[in-house]
């Protein structure tokens, strides 16, 4: 059976940890490995942090995290309504950052890509950004012979 959650929150640093914990709790039913839980938590953290820092430039706004689980497949969308990304391929390049003064490593999208099975980014400048990620968890990932 399909299960869905929607978490809407202010784009504040203190909510980054909340988003990680909420998603980690949501994905427990398919019995994921510790590694898989860590992977998902990292991906959530990267996407939500991007929204806080880049989409709203630390000035706040709203972030919506949607997750669904069906037969061990996690589908996750993290959406903001901030400044958007003009050049998505450039933004996704490892080590590229628009905020070097904040010591951002430029590895956010690279980590999302590495830790999830798929990553898609939709964005419109001035309107916002939606990051869509999927990952098979627990038995569903092992059936694929991935691990």
């Amino acid at each position: 059976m399909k299960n869905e959650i929607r978490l809407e929150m202010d784009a504040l640093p203190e909510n980054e940890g909340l988003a990680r914990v909420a998603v980690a709790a949501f994905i427990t039913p398919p019995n994921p490995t510790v590694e898989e839980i860590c992977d998902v938590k990292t991906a959530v953290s990267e996407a939500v942090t991007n929204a806080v820092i880049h989409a709203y430039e630390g000035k706040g706004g709203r972030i919506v995290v949607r997750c669904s689980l069906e037969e061990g497949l996690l589908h996750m969308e993290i959406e903001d309504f901030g400044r958007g990304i003009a050049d998505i391929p450039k933004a996704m390049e490892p080590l590229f950052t628009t905020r070097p003064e904040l010591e951002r490593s430029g590895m956010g999208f690279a980590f999302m890509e590495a830790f999830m099975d798929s990553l898609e980014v939709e964005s419109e400048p001035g309107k916002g950004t939606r990051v869509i990620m999927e990952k098979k968890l627990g038995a569903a990932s092992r059936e694929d012979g991935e691990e």
Partner: protein
Amino acid sequence: MEEEYRIIDRYLMIRLPEEIDHRSCQEISRRADRMLLSSEVKDVVFDFSRTVFMDSSGVGVLAGRYRRVSCFGGRVYVANASRRIRKILKLSGLMKYLEFMEREENDEKRDQA
């Protein structure tokens, strides 16, 4: 929590928090840099023994401190890093700039937890 940042011999030892993310990393960088400025020390040891989570924000902290100390011949050491933390550092391409203080037995226990 002053004891989390200590000077021992010629090393600045930093005991990192449980979660290293955007929120906690600003404080880590700020306090590390303040101690590096006010002391004669040029080597930094990041102790991950308590750390269970780190995202790319932590990579920024380590890379930033490396940039700061390496121009004076300083080094950045990583101690007690779990398999997960090492995976993150490996992916970030930082490995070749860091010195590792291994403690495998402890790691295995924590990784299984």
